[in-house]
């Protein structure tokens, strides 16, 4: 099946390592949640009803304007792909774990470069996502909004004068907008400023969480920062609020990096080189250690301590070393300790090619 090409390679547009401030902001994601009028939300929809949602929304995909503005869109019904492919799509952040495991008549619609991912019959009937590399919240919002306009011209949304766009979960009602950026903040973690900054962030209507696994722990010093409030603010305010807060965090991280370099260069160099050495030669590597050491190497490259892989390779490695992707690459049905061996092998080979 041609659709499987999305799970055969790791690199997505959002991992390209380009875009503004891409040494600190890995990627930007904006999603809007919408529902169709007169049909129950996926939580209570019958098979027939969710089938109707799928049919109506996939019809819009054939819209000529959509084709002109966004290129070919590939519809992938979730019941047509196997569990491993689903897991890989989750690891690439193209679909949610929820869509992979619980949806009925669920589907994902992807552009060729995977910068647009539209989920059908997730928690809401329609979730439009735009994923961009680097720090591009305004761009991602504009694109998501343009897609939203096209859908809106062809289907009737559940919309209320007072509450705005109606969603299944009360935390999304109003704009249905969630904008988030993935940030790499090793220096703020090392200098122990991170908790202070994150709790300040939470006081201005934003939330922070780690990006790996189900836990709240921020493995690999990667943090996802997103708006919490969707009702009572305009989309422009939400985007601008996130934008300005993230700019300040970038500034703090930059300062912390500079201080590390000025005040403890030898220690930071030691840390980066140790991690680089271990990644280059280790035979067994669990995912937690991989995330931490990859973070060290990434910081080392950013600080000029190490001439190493560009950030696109690091982003790709983060995804490639996830359980689903490892099994996709090296053969299915590995147990965790086998995965640790293949993870180490994959990292060794990748760094061997790109580091000097």
């Amino acid at each position, binding site marked *: 099946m041609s659709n499987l090409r999305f799970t055969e390679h790791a690199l997505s547009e959002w991992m390209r390592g380009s875009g503004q401030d891409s040494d600190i902001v890995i990627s930007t994601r904006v999603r809007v949640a919408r*529902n169709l*009028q*007169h*049909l*129950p*939300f996926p*939580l*209570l929809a019958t098979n027939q009803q969710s089938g109707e949602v799928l049919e109506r929304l996939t019809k819009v995909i054939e819209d000529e304007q959509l084709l002109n503005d966004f290129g070919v869109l590939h519809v992938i019904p979730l019941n047509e792909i196997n569990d491993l492919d689903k897991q890989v799509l989750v690891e690439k952040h193209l679909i*949610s*774990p*929820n869509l992979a495991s*619980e949806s009925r008549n669920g589907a994902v619609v992807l552009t060729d470069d995977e910068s647009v991912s539209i989920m059908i019959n*997730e*928690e809401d009937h329609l979730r439009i996502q735009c994923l961009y590399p680097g720090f591009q919240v305004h761009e991602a919002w504009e694109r998501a*909004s343009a897609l*939203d*306009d096209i859908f*809106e*011209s062809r289907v*009737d*949304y*559940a*919309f*209320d*004068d*007072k*509450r*705005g*766009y*109606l*969603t*299944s*979960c*009360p*935390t*999304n*009602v*109003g*704009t249905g*907008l969630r904008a988030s950026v993935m940030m790499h903040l090793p220096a703020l973690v090392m200098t122990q400023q991170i908790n202070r900054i*994150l*709790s300040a962030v*939470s*006081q201005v209507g934003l*939330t*922070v*969480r780690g990006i790996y696994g*189900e*836990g*709240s*722990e921020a493995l690999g010093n990667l943090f996802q920062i997103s708006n*919490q*409030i*969707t*009702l*009572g*603010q*305009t*989309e422009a305010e*939400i985007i601008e609020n996130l934008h300005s807060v993230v700019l300040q965090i970038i500034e703090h991280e930059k300062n912390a990096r500079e201080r590390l370099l000025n005040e403890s260069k030898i220690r930071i160099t030691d840390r980066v080189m140790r991690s680089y050495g271990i990644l280059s030669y280790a035979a067994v590597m669990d995912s937690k250690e991989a995330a931490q050491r990859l973070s060290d190497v990434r910081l080392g490259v950013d600080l000029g301590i190490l001439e190493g892989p560009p950030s696109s390779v690091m982003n790709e490695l983060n995804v490639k070393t996830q359980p689903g992707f490892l099994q996709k690459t090296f053969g299915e049905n590995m147990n965790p300790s086998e995965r640790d061996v293949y993870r180490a092998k994959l990292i060794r080979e990748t760094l061997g090619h790109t580091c000097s």
Partner: protein
Amino acid sequence: MLCQECGKRPATLHFTKIVNGEKTEFHFCEFCAREKGELIPGTSNGFSIHSLLSGLLDLDPSGKGQTPGAISAQSLRCEECGMTYSQFSKVGRFGCSSCYNYFSDRLDPLFKRVHGNTAHIGKVPKRSGGRIKLKRRLDELKKELQYRIVREEFEAAAEIRDQIRELEKNMAQG
């Protein structure tokens, strides 16, 4: 089990947060939980699972049992999809868009807690939202009219009054 935050003290508070279908488990000791209190939505001063849940679901936040008002709220039911308010407060998700109407009276406090607001001021669908846009424009003009009158700018005020009349005529014609 040790606290996931400090890794020293035993974790005494365990809870699962589900946001947008993404489940996150937390295991904190009392101290770290207090410290992180402000990171947890729905709590203003420190950590309290009870205020977190009851706040989100708009049950009785005092913790002294349900008030008569809360009981009647529990018997509310959406005629469209059949979901009851009591089910909604357990699941935390609406069954259909009509639930918003049937539970309407109970939603302001909930939205106030979650979003700090109760009404949408953002994007409006282009096709079906035409009326809403006119209404918003009308509200804006009325505000400006008051402003002009207070400042005794009567010429400008008259202009705005004409615009309001025109707009109201359009809206009446549908």
